[in-house]
């Protein structure tokens, strides 16, 4: 049942259903919870939808697990120059294909030319993470702009933009990526990122368009129009905030999807060019020494962990940002 937390100094008005009994500082208080709360010097505070969403997210165990895992992994990647004991290209010819050991901090062993594999995996995380986040941000912005314009203006504009979206969706992404990657990708991380972003915006564009299409008919949009609001104000003040939920969820998931696609691309040799390590590059390199299991298992495991964490978080965000749910209290 609802528990009044004196530190929070707030009670959601939606929870005015009188509970059987309530505890304030260990005392049992009569069911008239609100009066009791007032006597305790508490006040009722408005809680925005974002407050509710944050609370729901913080209560979602898997999502929190994903968040913590992601902070650790991405943190290690982002601070690779501090975390990794060696540089990703430092060669130690005395230690070729060494199995994982704590000696000399070779936690993940060494590869066929004696580079520390732990360091390479950490640097690989950094590359993959940069690609994932870049693709998610750029494709979200692209999808948002295209979806918003299509949904808000409708008609011919909508038709053109959505048929273009359909066209991009029908393209066999991996085949095109391989070709384009081979032609002018040249293994550059940023070019690969742009190409990936070009394939990832479609989902977000569709979601955003749907929201714009339904919300532009809302009476409060009409009310804003009647007050004299222009298109920009209506789009940014009245409709956009309602699309942020789906965009955040979709964007999170596309971080994982971009990392997976980049790994697949690098694995078949059209992605990042060595010696820059990305997780996909590492798995591919490990293939050449099948006896040394650590060369494929550790980067592979990292990919799995990242994608799992991101997806857990995405699920949590989806539940938290769904405005039809308002179960979490206190």
């Amino acid at each position, binding site marked *: 049942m609802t528990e009044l937390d004196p530190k929070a100094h707030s009670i959601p008005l939606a929870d005015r259903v009188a509970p059987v009994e309530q505890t304030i500082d260990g005392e049992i208080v009569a069911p008239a919870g609100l009066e009791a709360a007032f006597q305790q010097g508490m006040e009722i505070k408005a809680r*925005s939808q974002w407050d509710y969403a944050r609370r729901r997210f913080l209560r979602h165990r898997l999502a929190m697990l994903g968040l913590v895992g992601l902070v650790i992994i991405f943190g290690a990647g982002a601070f690779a120059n501090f975390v990794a004991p060696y540089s990703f290209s430092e060669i130690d010819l005395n230690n070729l294909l060494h199995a994982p050991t704590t000696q000399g901090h070779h936690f993940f062993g060494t590869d066929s030319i004696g580079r520390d594999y732990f360091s390479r995996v950490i640097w690989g995380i950094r590359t993959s993470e940069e690609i994932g986040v870049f693709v998610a941000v750029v494709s979200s912005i692209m999808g948002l702009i295209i979806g918003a314009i299509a949904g808000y203006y409708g008609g011919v504009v909508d038709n053109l933009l959505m048929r273009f979206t359909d066209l991009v969706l029908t393209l066999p992404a991996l085949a095109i990526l391989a070709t384009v990657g081979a032609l002018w990708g040249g293994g550059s991380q940023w070019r690969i990122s742009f190409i990936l972003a070009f394939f990832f915006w479609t989902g977000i564009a569709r979601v955003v368009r749907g929201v714009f299409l339904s919300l532009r008919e809302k009476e409060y949009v009409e009310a804003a129009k009647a*007050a004299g609001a222009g298109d920009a104000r209506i789009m940014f003040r009245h409709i956009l905030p309602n699309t942020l939920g789906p965009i955040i969820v979709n964007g999170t998931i596309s971080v994982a999807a971009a990392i997976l696609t980049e790994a697949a691309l690098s694995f078949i040799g059209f992605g990042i060019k060595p010696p820059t390590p990305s997780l996909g590059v590492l798995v591919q390199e490990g293939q050449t020494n099948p006896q040394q299991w650590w060369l494929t298992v550790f980067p592979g495991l990292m990919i799995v962990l990242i994608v799992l964490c991101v997806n857990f978080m995405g699920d949590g965000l989806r539940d938290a940002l769904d405005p039809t749910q308002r179960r979490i209290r206190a």
Partner: protein
Amino acid sequence: MTEPLLRADGLVKHFPVLRGVVFRRAVAEVHAVDGVSFEIAPGETFGVVGESGCGKTTVARLVMRLVDLDDGTLTSDGEDITRVRGEALRKLRLKMQIIFQDPFASLNPRMTVGDIVGEPLHIHNMWKDGGPRRVRELLDLVGLAAEHAERYPHEFSGGQRQRIGIARALALHPKLVVCDEPVSALDVSMRAQILNLLKHLQEEFGLTYLFISHDLSVVRQVCDRVAVMYLGQVVEVAERDALFDRALHPYTQALISAIPIPDPELERKRRRIVLQGDVPSPQDPPRACRFHTRCFKAQEICEQIEPELEQRCDDHPAACHFAEPRAPVVESPA
């Protein structure tokens, strides 16, 4: 009659019915509003009544210039506002505001009440000189507390939300307020409060109302003059008392005969006019007189010649070839 605040002349709005996915084409047209004319004098409350789907709300949206007219002209204070755009339309918003029917849909759930009421001030660059004070003033005016500005719409009841909508409409000191069924989503006890509030605001600020409703008893309570609409056309316009005492059009008579009378004795004695059938589809309205398919007075002429809305036998215009007052049904309750 003094110069009208708003004159509508032959308003027409047809909505296309679209088919097809890529190549959309209009397969039919909904004749939502088909030649509606009226004048609203400053300071009066002009009512528009009719069943659902008769085009009342479309009239409100046309007057507010929220949808574009297909034909006809709108004049306000002698100025043609039919096609104004851009800055001129923004200026027009200062003069005309609207209160919506559904207080749950017309307030953005993600904005605080203060933001909602203050938005028109932001839009018209009036926020800087005393915006927050004006918001408090408006909330006070409609019977809400200044603290409510920090809250979100979902924390309020329907009646309170409608008060927020009214505060928003008044923010710019409009002359004309279009009330699109402002009380039909509220329960009866709330209804009286909101109507009284509207009345009070009208007296205080000299507002003019275009009051749209399907509820004849509400219209009788608040309106000075009333237009009755059927299938996108006005069938009768009259002063309130003239309409309720001496309705000329058979449709108006049928509507009035359906108002319940509180006295059960009288209620039992009175004769109702029960119309046959449903309202025909506005996609394909009947020819000539649109009411002839359901009218108890219909003759051959009604299917051939469209009756104009003009002065016929009494003191006010009605669009019926056989317009005449109905014989008293029961003794007047007074």
